[in-house]
């Protein structure tokens, strides 16, 4: 996004590792000048896979590429006296500092919020940690699976009689990162009005709890623990119905039902009509779906038998059709059905392509352009543009230290020899 609009002109110092990288990326997406500060030698998050062409190298992590889009990069050892002093000079020029160290680490360096506030009262410092800055778990160690488990998102996924499941793609720190961005921007709005900065203390665990839909409310009201129930929907340990089905060339997801939820009822009626056309599911012709309530399955054995019969009918019908055939007719007839996409299906979606979602980003050092997921909100007529691919290690040291802070090249060499940059 062009300079001086949206967050253009605001500077972010990003000290985070994998726990907070997304936060700065999002501020960069809105046009902020994000400077990723890495320890000399590079950030540990550069070792997170997958890697470009499967070459495990700190300049080839695809995780790093995505989470550091729209950032510039410098190296700085903030544990050294020279590093601290340099960091403080940068804080004078900055609007946001984002960090994801263990609680208390920044303060132990003399770089806690109280100190930074003295240097720049407008500064917003956002700390993104697994559990927040204080409390009994504040120093607990996490990885994705441990974090999403403690946030309740593993228990609600899985199949009956099997261990609960995590999504096979990390979400814990992305959730923390995006809530970090929300908190930072709420604080930013306040600062723009009043000039007052503050400290934003983010808990990734709470971010995950916020993603559980109504699992917590089920316990609160009804003392029911929601547990994963396989390829469908259910409650209270009781499986209502299957919503995921095999078709000719993969899987589809269909939300069928009855009763009050018009979309589910229409789906049941219309999919039955489609199957009837092929001489299938004739026992559901003119079935009164409007009087049907899946959730009554808990109390009513007849409903369970009907559900089993319907699911059996759908299973047989879908095997005669491809994803595309089913999806095309679903769109026409307001049937809530989609292809259950893998990565290829997502990339080939005509909808994402038509909206211009994918962004090609040049990587001159790799000699090619890589296609990235773009920004999912269109902001008026301001186009989203990737201003900067993820930085190489220390790529902007000269820009920042020499051109901006006015360090001489000799000074830069001295700092380098001491391992400060």
């Amino acid at each position, binding site marked *: 996004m062009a300079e001086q609009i949206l967050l253009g002109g605001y500077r972010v110092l990003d000290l985070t590792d994998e726990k907070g990288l997304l936060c700065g990326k999002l501020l960069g997406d809105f046009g902020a000048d994000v400077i990723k500060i890495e320890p000399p030698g590079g950030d540990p998050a550069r070792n997170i896979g997958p890697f470009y062409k499967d070459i495990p190298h700190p300049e080839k992590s695809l995780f790093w590429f995505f989470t550091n889009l729209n950032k510039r990069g410098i190296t700085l050892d903030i544990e050294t006296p020279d590093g601290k002093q340099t960091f403080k000079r940068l804080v004078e020029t900055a609007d946001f500092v984002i960090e994801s160290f263990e609680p208390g680490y920044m303060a132990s360096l003399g770089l806690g919020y109280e100190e930074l506030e003295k240097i720049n009262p407008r500064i917003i410092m956002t700390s993104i940690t697994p559990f927040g800055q204080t409390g009994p778990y504040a120093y607990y160690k996490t990885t994705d699976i441990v974090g999403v488990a403690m946030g309740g998102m593993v228990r609600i996924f899985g199949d009956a009689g099997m261990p609960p499941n995590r999504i096979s793609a990390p979400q814990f720190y992305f959730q923390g990162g995006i809530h970090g961005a929300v*908190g930072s921007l709420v604080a930013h709005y306040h600062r723009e009005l009043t000039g007052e900065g503050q400290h934003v203390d983010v808990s990734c665990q709470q971010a995950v709890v916020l993603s559980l839909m109504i699992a917590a409310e089920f316990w609160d009201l009804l003392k029911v623990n929601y547990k994963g129930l396989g390829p469908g929907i259910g409650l209270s340990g009781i499986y209502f119905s299957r919503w995921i089905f095999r078709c000719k060339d993969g899987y589809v997801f269909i939300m069928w039902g*009855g009763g009050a939820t018009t979309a589910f009822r229409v789906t049941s009626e219309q999919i039955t009509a489609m199957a009837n056309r092929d001489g299938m599911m004739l026992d559901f012709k003119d079935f009164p779906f409007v009087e049907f309530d899946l959730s009554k399955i808990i109390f009513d054995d007849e409903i369970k038998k009907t559900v089993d019969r319907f699911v059996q009918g759908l299973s047989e019908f879908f095997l005669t059709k491809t994803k595309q055939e089913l999806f095309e007719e679903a769109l026409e007839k307001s049937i809530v059905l989609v292809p259950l996409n893998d990565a290829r299906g997502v990339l080939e979606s005509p*909808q994402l392509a038509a909206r211009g979602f994918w962004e090609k980003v040049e990587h001159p050092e790799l000699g090619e352009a890589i296609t990235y997921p773009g920004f999912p909100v269109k902001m008026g007529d301001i186009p989203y543009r990737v201003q900067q691919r993820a930085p190489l290690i220390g790529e902007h040291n000269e820009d920042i230290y020499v051109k901006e802070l006015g360090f001489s090249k000799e000074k830069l060499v001295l700092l380098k020899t001491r391992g400060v940059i």
Partner: protein
Amino acid sequence: MAKQIFEGIKVADFAWVGVGVQPSRELAEHGATVVRVECHKYPDSLRTIPPFKDWLPGIDRGAFGAAYNTNKYGISLDLNTPKGQEVAKRLVAWADIVTDGMTPGTMAKWGLEYESCKKIKPDIIYYSTCQMGQKGPLYKFGGFGMVGTAYAGYCYLLGWPDKDPLSLFNNYSDFVAPWYLTCAVIVALLHRRKTGEGMYLDQSQVETGVTFLAPVMLDYIVNGRIANRMGNRDPYMAPHGVYPCLGDDRWVAIAVSSEDEWDDFCCVIGDPEWTKDPRFATFLGRKENDGELDRLIGEWTKDFTAEQIMTMLQDAGVPAGVVEAAEDLFNDPQLKHREHFRFLEHKVIGRHAYNAPAYRLSKTPNHIWKAGPCLGEDNEYVYKEILGYTDDEIADMLIEGVITTETDAPAGF
């Protein structure tokens, strides 16, 4: 109490279901005045889906709709009547922000799409959020987060590699989308402050979901690899998984991410002989034999509670955590410390739980004070005080059914 951050910001909240109502809630929790427009004839489906108080369905008995609408004023208004549309436009004229979470085209039917609202209020900020976005070949697709999540690639990545994929009960992309939108609307508010211009925001919920799978997408785009679901394994760690514990269906998550952590882990479990077995002495060995490794660890975990294992391993610096069910979340000492669950008195449900945001602001904390409204709960305040209608006008609208009072919509799904 100190002035709240968004005090003075006014929101006409036409959004419904899960996504569009959450950014407006976020603003409301920091002081914005949000008026939520609903109708008894076409109740928000969150009002017809459990959990209901005492399992008894009823449009004001569900926690689902309530939880997403903290601090908002709720009115009932039939937008399918000309008078209802006129009232809605008066609300737009009052507002800084208009929200739309309908299937594309619905707001236009009522004369409430962005272009019309912009005529009423030239600097209006207006957000639309739906599964696919407002334009494109599939824009009309009206769905829910569950199918959006399947379309965005999540279901394929949940479950066991040799079994069918599993559904994401929580409509997961519904809990990525609102936060993008909250960021965007705050940026738009500041843009208006600087330039005097409003803005139209158009969100695709499927796209928001895809961004949280970016590493998987890049692995396909660059390396041609289609990631598969892998149970609880991880491509880069072993041991890694959830393991059975003492108790009924209790589990603990354990992930060993470094050699130091492996040494500490072995120490906690008492350095049994098998840890010296050449199959498990190296990381590559453990990765290769992760099935047997998981079985052996499960033999150890099953004699302890999930809480005991978490404490033992965390004390040694090894990542481990209880696989928390909803009940555990309410007892979680860390969430208690953070005051995550806030209890408010709802007119029908009684005292029940609401979520606090995931972030705490040191100087301007949020303030959660009003339970999600019953349908039409704040009619009197909004129609009189905010919109300036007289008692007679309000009486007429009630008689004509413009302000709705009764529902015959069935509940369930």
